[in-house]
């Protein structure tokens, strides 16, 4: 890498003009597609003043949406952590047939459209779904209620933790754990004192991305929630409803909280990549 100030680039550099043009193109594109949309969120959120902003966020429906979003994430994320650790332990530390098929299946939810992710639960648990009649008989509500929202959220965030841990644990191998076991540690002890410290930063990384998606998921949750105000509206759904009612300032006020969550997520993620690059999987794909 060379500083722009340096004249006479070497043979493996583009001319200064080409460089300036490429940098301008890249930054222009990023400004147009990333910075401007973000700036709009905060400008619109405060367009009617701080009072309106606070009022929008403290409205009972907004508070209910915030509470529901936090509840859903608090259920979905820990369950996916447990799954991610179990899956990566089985896949990375052991050899068995059909492993690559299992990895593909774990990654599958990423390739499914959010709308389809919600639809499958409606077809299973909805009033006309396969289990619909049985659920109605037993007075169990899943669709248009909290369980459906949680299930759809778990589905769309399913691979996040596992896909961070699997490549890292495969890279690390199991020599450390074998040493611990040879020295008399139990399996649980070996996991807690050897494996967990080795994977903690990658785990945090996966949890961070999992949480951001869990709190921000829209399509899958929109299909299963039923949009009942104050009851089954998560924050992204509340943003949609307010926007469709032309209540733009309030809509962007709630959206600004979600944007803030995204910014905090990006900051911690960048810090992890910078500070603990070695402790994250080498070939990590986003």
């Amino acid at each position, binding site marked *: *890498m*060379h*500083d*722009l100030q340096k004249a006479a680039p070497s*043979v*493996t550099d*583009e001319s200064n003009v080409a460089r300036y043009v*490429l940098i301008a*193109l*890249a930054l222009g*594109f990023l400004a147009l597609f*990333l910075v401007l*949309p*973000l700036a*709009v*969120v905060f400008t619109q959120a405060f367009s009617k003043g701080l009072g309106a902003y606070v009022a929008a966020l403290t409205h009972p429906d907004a508070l209910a949406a915030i509470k529901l979003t936090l509840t859903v994430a608090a259920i979905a994320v820990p*369950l996916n952590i*447990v799954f991610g650790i*179990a*899956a990566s*332990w*089985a896949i990375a*530390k*052991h*050899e*068995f*047939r059909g492993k690559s098929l299992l990895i*593909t*299946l774990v*990654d*599958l939810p990423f*390739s499914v*459209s*959010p*709308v*389809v992710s919600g*639809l499958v639960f*409606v*077809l299973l648990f909805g009033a*006309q779904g*396969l289990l619909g009649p049985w659920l109605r008989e037993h007075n169990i509500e899943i669709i248009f209620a909290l369980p459906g929202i949680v299930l759809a959220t*778990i*589905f769309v965030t*399913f691979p996040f933790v596992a896909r961070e841990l699997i490549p890292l644990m495969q890279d690390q191998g199991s020599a450390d754990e*074998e040493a611990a076991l040879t020295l008399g540690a139990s*399996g649980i002890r070996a996991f807690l004192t050897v494996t967990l410290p080795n994977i903690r930063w990658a785990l945090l990384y996966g949890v961070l*991305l999992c949480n951001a998606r869990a709190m921000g998921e*829209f399509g899958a949750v*929109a299909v299963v929630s039923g949009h009942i105000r104050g009851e089954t509206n998560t924050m*992204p759904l509340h943003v949609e409803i307010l926007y469709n009612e032309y209540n733009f300032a309030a*809509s*962007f006020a709630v*959206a600004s909280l*979600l*944007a803030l*969550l995204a910014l905090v997520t*990006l*900051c911690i*993620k960048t810090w992890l990549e910078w500070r603990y690059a070695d402790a994250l999987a080498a070939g990590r794909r*986003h």
Partner: protein
Amino acid sequence: MSAIAEAPGQAGIGTGWRFREKSAIPGFVPAFAWTLIWLSFIVLIPLGALILRASGIGVSGFVDILSDPRVLSALRITFGLSFLAALVNAVFGLIIAWTLVRYRFPGARLADAAVDLPFALPTAVAGISLASLYAPNGWLGVWFAEAGIKVAYTPFGIFIALVFIGLPFVVRTVQPLIAEIDREIEEASATLGASRARTLRSVILPPLAPALLTGFALAFARAVGEYGSVIFIAGNLPYVSEIVPILIVIKLEEFNYAGATAIATVMLAISFVMLLAINLIQAWSRRRFGYA
């Protein structure tokens, strides 16, 4: 080292078929069992319910639903615009990745971190923000309106949203490979008299092609299924700016479960094909270039 690692496998072949190789590491059974149970309950059984439901529709039912001009038009709009958006992402993604790896300039680290914003920003937030940005009275919409171009509530608006959500896929797939390019090859090419442009075209671009193609496929696959960031800016006019995912939602709201199921099954099948295509590109790349 690899010989040691493979030793248990060799023993396995000698004693016949075996599901799992012996390992000193405990905990396989509970970890594997939980993986399978959770995978089945969350992913496999729900997707199975969709397939089961679809099988009840029958071939003629499928043909009826999918030959509806409104569905065909939504498919055309979704795939056409996703393709265009992924193409733009491939071009600008490559430029951005190259710039971030090769040049040092003020704000480079910030720009690098910002690339992931579409991953982190909830799609609904991106959706309303893009819609208000490109609305006829929005910051950018005003300029387009003066030029007589409508962006929001047209296919052009959908395209903008799809470019937004697809960008990180290309950048993050190509970036690590650019970082690994051996400068000596470029020096050799220059020494042999190639111009810088020739070196870029004949020496640097070919090995990047598989990653670029993978990034394109990932961006395309994401765009096809995208919902949240599109619906606000699209206007959702049938035959004009109606994408497939919103059509599924509309069918569902009309309690037309067969219609929603048939269209969703097509989307799911396309997801599988894209997943397969991406894996094939990576397998080909591994054979041809030694990395995926």
